[in-house]
């Protein structure tokens, strides 16, 4: 199933790249956009995006996209992405999205359409463009919600989306429903099973439904996201004692997002709940067949000038709401308690001298290591509970 989707996406992309270059931009809607981001990370303890304790340049994002109107109501669009982030992402190019978007209703009261192909997962405020620096409020998105260690599952799905927007006197409501096969890789195994076990996630299916209300002038925005993912884990032969066997990891997600915007201030908060059930896998996961994690952040952003902004954010993650201090995980599984939570204070500054460039600097003061990638921190018994991180970023768009 996955292979078939892949070939559809590749042919969509080939079609996109082979369109004749002779049309003038005004007679036909056809455009290219791209960006490149380079980051630098330094941490006093633990590693983020590479060996950051000695300073890491191991963070790079590159994206190129194109969109073309192939018929009045039909758009073809796709984006190629390369991302290097420590031991989590190796920089190999992948198709971020590639889709056909057909608008079957376009009225003054709103519109409706359908997308087919590889579609960005609409989740919270930032997920659909999480790898595009100048759409983010900070260099590193709040890791409690937008954790980078299980990115693929969250990035995009191969399937279809139905969407609609209704305009009212007071504002607008936008609703999107994606049904399909979410992307997954070994990082998803690290994130949900804590290491690369024998066997792998073979099939997956899921849906995400996101509805957003925004007031007329976008000064108030509220969004709710609900979804479910089912990941099929398959092992050849009999699993070793303690290792997961054949079964399904079932993940329910729900998120509430709120934002107030003023001329110079923006206040943003999001709350996220994830219910994970892996009882059918057996192994050590059979001991803890259900798990509810909780994430939330509150961020205040101030625009000093149109070019310069600052923000302060508090971001909190609990892997298990029944074990917020991590002591049960320590007693049952011998894992350090600090791997079960992360409480992060972030202070950041951004400078956008013009539309092409963006620079950011951020300071994180973190207690806990719950969102650190095991791939970059293989020995969790060595993890430090209290740590600091400095991150710098430059982005150019074209």
């Amino acid at each position, binding site marked *: 199933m996955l292979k078939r989707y892949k070939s559809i996406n590749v042919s969509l992309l080939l079609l996109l790249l082979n369109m004749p270059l002779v049309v003038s931009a005004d007679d036909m809607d056809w455009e290219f956009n791209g960006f490149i981001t380079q980051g630098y990370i330094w941490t006093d303890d633990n590693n983020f995006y590479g060996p950051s304790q000695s300073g890491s340049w191991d963070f790079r994002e590159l994206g190129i996209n194109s969109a073309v109107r192939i018929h009045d109501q039909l758009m073809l669009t796709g*984006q190629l992405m390369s991302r290097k982030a420590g031991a989590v992402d190796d920089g190999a190019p992948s198709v971020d999205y590639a889709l056909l978007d057909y608008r079957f209703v376009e009225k003054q009261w709103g519109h409706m359409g359908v997308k087919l192909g590889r579609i*960005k997962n609409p989740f919270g405020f930032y997920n659909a*463009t999480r790898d595009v620096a100048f*759409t983010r409020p900070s260099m590193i998105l709040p890791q409690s919600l937008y954790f980078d260690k299980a990115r693929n599952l969250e990035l995009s799905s191969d399937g279809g989306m139905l969407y609609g927007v209704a305009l009212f006197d007071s504002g607008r409501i936008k609703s999107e429903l994606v049904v399909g096969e979410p992307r997954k890789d070994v990082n998803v195994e690290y994130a949900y099973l804590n290491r690369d076990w024998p066997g792998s996630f073979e099939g997956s299916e899921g849906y995400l439904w996101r509805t957003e209300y925004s007031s007329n002038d976008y000064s108030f925005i509220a969004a709710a996201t609900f979804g479910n993912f089912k990941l099929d884990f398959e092992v050849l032969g009999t699993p070793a004692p303690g290792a997961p066997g054949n079964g399904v990891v079932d993940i329910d997600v729900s998120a509430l997002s709120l934002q107030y915007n003023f001329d110079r201030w923006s206040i943003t908060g999001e709350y996220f709940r994830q219910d994970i059930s892996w009882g059918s896998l057996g192994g050590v996961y059979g001991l803890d067949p259900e798990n509810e994690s909780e994430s939330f952040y509150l961020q205040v952003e101030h625009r000093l000038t149109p070019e310069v902004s600052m923000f302060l954010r508090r971001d909190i993650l609990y892997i298990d709401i029944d074990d917020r201090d991590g002591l049960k995980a320590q007693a049952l599984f011998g894992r350090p308690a600090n791997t079960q939570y992360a409480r992060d204070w972030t202070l950041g500054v951004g400078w956008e001298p013009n539309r092409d460039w963006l620079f950011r600097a951020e300071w994180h003061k973190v207690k806990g290591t719950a969102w650190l990638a095991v791939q970059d921190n293989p020995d969790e018994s060595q993890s430090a509970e209290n740590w600091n991180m400095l991150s710098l970023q430059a982005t150019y768009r074209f």
Partner: protein
Amino acid sequence: MIRFLVLLLLLMLPRIGLSEVIVNTSVSLDNVNRQYLLSIFSMQTRVWPDGQPIRVYILPPNQPEHRSFVKNELKVFPYKLVKIWDRSVFSGSGFSPKVVGSIDEMLTKIAKHKGAIGYVMTDIEGGQDVKTLQVY
């Protein structure tokens, strides 16, 4: 004398920064509400009700004329509109507006291209080849 100058200034004030929406003469609508206009300029609506593609023209987003149009006519913060464009373009949900260098170029493009929409300052002459769209 000072009173006269102040009066003159007050009379002139409402004209400063006022802009109006212009469209290609192929567009059949004569008036639109503000929500729909914002949906067009935020690149969410792609097709006119009569089925022809919408082509949005703007001045460079950092220019005072653009910022004034966005604040006074669309009634949204200019930074918010830029974010909406970026999120839409980089998630496979829409096109970018076409940026022109001057009001003259704006008038030329809108006169020439079917389904085109843009804006001019109200005191600009020479809009005979384009149509004004009333906003209510």
